[in-house]
């Protein structure tokens, strides 16, 4: 009963522990026995997601894996396709990945439109036009050691996507014929999105594929930039669409929605310095002293004022809390103040000062209320300490009085008595 299991275990161990669809896989047997350097696929494939799902080399490359004779195993009569030409790779993968019936057996929720999307991408169009230097499936997903997207070792795992794209897009030599910049990855690494992805470990933070698409990768058109950013920044897009800037930025020569002010790959933490001052993005279009520049400065002043007021309240409340005062209600109120600050920053995108004033006023009222609560807590703390000092003084006086009383009682030597103490009742 146990003998077949032992034989299988020995075979499995000797074949490098590669699981395969069949115990007898001549592809693996022969390629594993080849010299170093030529057995490539057999060493890589042990981590491949296809092998983990029970597929084998022959399922992609064709042939007869059950035959030990190479001329039979790799004969065209047995359907052997060999190594596909580079231009044929997308279709080669699509033979399974675009087949819903086939994919349902292994990954029923997996999309099957990758090939279709790829054909709409810049990569796919250029490949169709005969440019074999563009990315195909294997350039992003790797070959023979293809891992599931959720596998952190996969080159298309969210944390690895920027670096995977940059392998080509940061290569000046590769990008020279296309006349496109190669600084995107360097800029992205300075962005808030990179920080969210790598420092906070937020896997939902945008990577290249989030804005450009993955299989259908292409740069967003000027008029669709706001929509792309709006997939995450929903409320900002809604307000921006109502603003005077929308028509101008999205129109011909406008530069494209959000990126006019925020840039594209190197998006930094926004601040009021974008509205007013030497680095203000507003000043690139509006000269100082003009009505729009003044409005921007006014709104920057409101935001900075609320921010300062909330920080002041926070400082006072923190001091009160560190003194042991119970100020949790005021601190909870301060959260509402910060929400209003966010709303004010959000309202800025509509470029309607009156709309922005509402959250600013609400936030300032909370800042005032919480500041007063904090100051009251600090006054109460001081009152308690004074109370303590007076109490300790009174206790000290009482102690001295008792000591005096003891001394007076014991002046006549009555402290000590001789003999047995009080015994049983």
């Amino acid at each position: 009963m146990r003998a077949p299991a032992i034989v299988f275990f020995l075979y499995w161990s000797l074949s490098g522990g590669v699981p395969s669809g069949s115990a007898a896989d001549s592809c693996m047997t022969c390629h594993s026995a080849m010299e170093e350097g030529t057995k490539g696929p057999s060493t890589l494939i042990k981590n491949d997601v296809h092998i983990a799902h029970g597929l084998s080399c022959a399922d992609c490359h064709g042939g007869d894996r059950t035959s030990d004779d190479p001329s039979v195993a790799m004969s065209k009569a047995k359907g052997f396709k060999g190594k596909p030409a580079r231009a044929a790779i997308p279709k080669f993968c699509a033979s399974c990945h675009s087949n819903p019936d086939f994919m349902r057996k292994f990954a029923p929720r997996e999309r099957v439109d990758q090939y279709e999307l790829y054909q709409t991408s810049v990569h796919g169009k250029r490949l169709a036009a005969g440019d074999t230097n563009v990315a195909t499936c294997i350039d992003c997903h790797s070959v023979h050691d293809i891992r599931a997207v959720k596998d952190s070792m996969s080159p298309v795992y969210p944390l690895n996507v920027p670096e995977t794209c940059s392998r080509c897009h940061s290569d000046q030599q590769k990008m020279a014929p296309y006349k496109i910049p190669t600084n995107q990855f360097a800029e992205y690494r300075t962005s808030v999105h990179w920080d969210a992805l790598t420092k906070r470990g937020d896997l939902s933070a945008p990577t290249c594929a989030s804005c450009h698409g993955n299989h259908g990768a292409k740069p967003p058109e000027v008029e669709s930039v706001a929509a792309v950013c709006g997939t995450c920044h929903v409320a900002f897009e809604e307000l921006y669409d109502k603003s005077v800037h929308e028509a101008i930025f999205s129109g011909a020569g406008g530069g494209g929605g959000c990126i006019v002010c925020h840039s594209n790959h190197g998006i930094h933490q926004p601040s009021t310095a974008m509205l007013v001052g030497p680095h203000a993005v507003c000043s690139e279009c509006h000269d100082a002293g003009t009505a729009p520049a003044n409005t921007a400065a006014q709104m920057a002043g409101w935001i900075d004022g609320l921010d300062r007021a909330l920080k002041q309240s926070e400082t006072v409340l923190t001091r009160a809390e560190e003194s042991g005062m119970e100020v949790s209600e005021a601190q909870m109120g301060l959260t509402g103040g910060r929400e209003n600050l966010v709303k004010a920053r959000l309202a800025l995108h509509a470029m309607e000062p009156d709309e922005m004033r509402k959250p600013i006023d609400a936030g300032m009222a909370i800042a005032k209320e919480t500041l007063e609560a904090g100051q009251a807590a600090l006054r109460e703390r001081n009152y308690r300490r004074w109370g303590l000092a007076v109490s300790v003084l009174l206790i000290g006086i009482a102690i001295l009085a008792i000591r005096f009383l003891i001394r007076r009682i014991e002046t006549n030597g009555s402290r000590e008595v001789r003999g047995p103490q009080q015994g049983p009742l």
Partner: protein
Amino acid sequence: MPATEPKNKTLDWLDERTGWRMVRDLADHKVVPLHAGTAWYYFGGITLFLLGIQVITGVLLLLYYRPTVAEAFDSVRFIMTRVEFGWLIRSIHSWSANLLILAAFVHMFSVVFTHAYRRPRELTWLSGIALLGLMLGFGFSGYLLPWNQISYFATKVGTDMASSVPVAGPPMARFLRGGDDVGAATLTRFFAFHVMILPLITFGLVGLHLLLVQFHGMSTPSGVSASRLAHMKFFPNFFLRELVIWYGVLAVLGTLAAIFPWELGQKADPFASAPAGIRPEWYFLAEFYTLKLIPSHVWFFEGELLGLLGFGLLAAGWVALPFWAAGRNGEHRARLVTAAGVFLICYLATFTILGYVK
């Protein structure tokens, strides 16, 4: 009645009905032995004083506290922020609880090192140990009452430990929680334990303990005859000194309450993950840290169970101290008891510090 005492109709009337002069006479005759360890006698009084503080502040807190999951936390916050001097009452109650347990431990070890548990004071020792257990019970049950995040999860851990005791553990944990998990039923039960059941038992035991102390008189160090020692009158000499110490303790309590008011934390959320670095109050920390050090399995025993078994044996041995301290021939094993006391103090101090640091 002393012959020199002047006649007083009111006092006579009262004495005829209450016999108060008998109590006064007892107090007049009560004396305290004077020797190198006389100062240790004060700790019994300090413990009693702190217990009194607990009763007074506890009753005041009861005026506003509401023992339901929906209202407990908010009612304590109301006490801390809205009730006049509510912060002081709650902070003194919490600090006093901790000082009370500390004073009870010091009192217990002073009894051990002065060998005051010897015959015929075995029952005094047993009632004292039971009172210490009750104080720990007060601490455990009172900790949950503010229904904040730390207390909720600490109670969860504590009752989980109880449930790992074989046979009696699961029903005992269920009885404590009033269900399978810490919840609304646990809060009302702990409230009932804290303000009714434990106080009733405590008052009975305190009465017995004081009665036994009065019955046997103050213990003198072993090997010294009470008749060869000088004594101090309890009233007023010793009592006034005790009063000075009580005032000192009151000043310490007031200072702690004013400078470090007891924290309220955040309202308990059973669906939140346990706060990082959660640990019990300091008086359970040594045991908690020991259990953490024990591997999950030792041979074929469950580690936690083995730890609890060890604590059970240790506690049983400690309770029985007066009995094993007396040898078969009646000799007193003073050195053995002292060594056991030193070992226990070293263990508790070391593991409590490690529990805090690690």
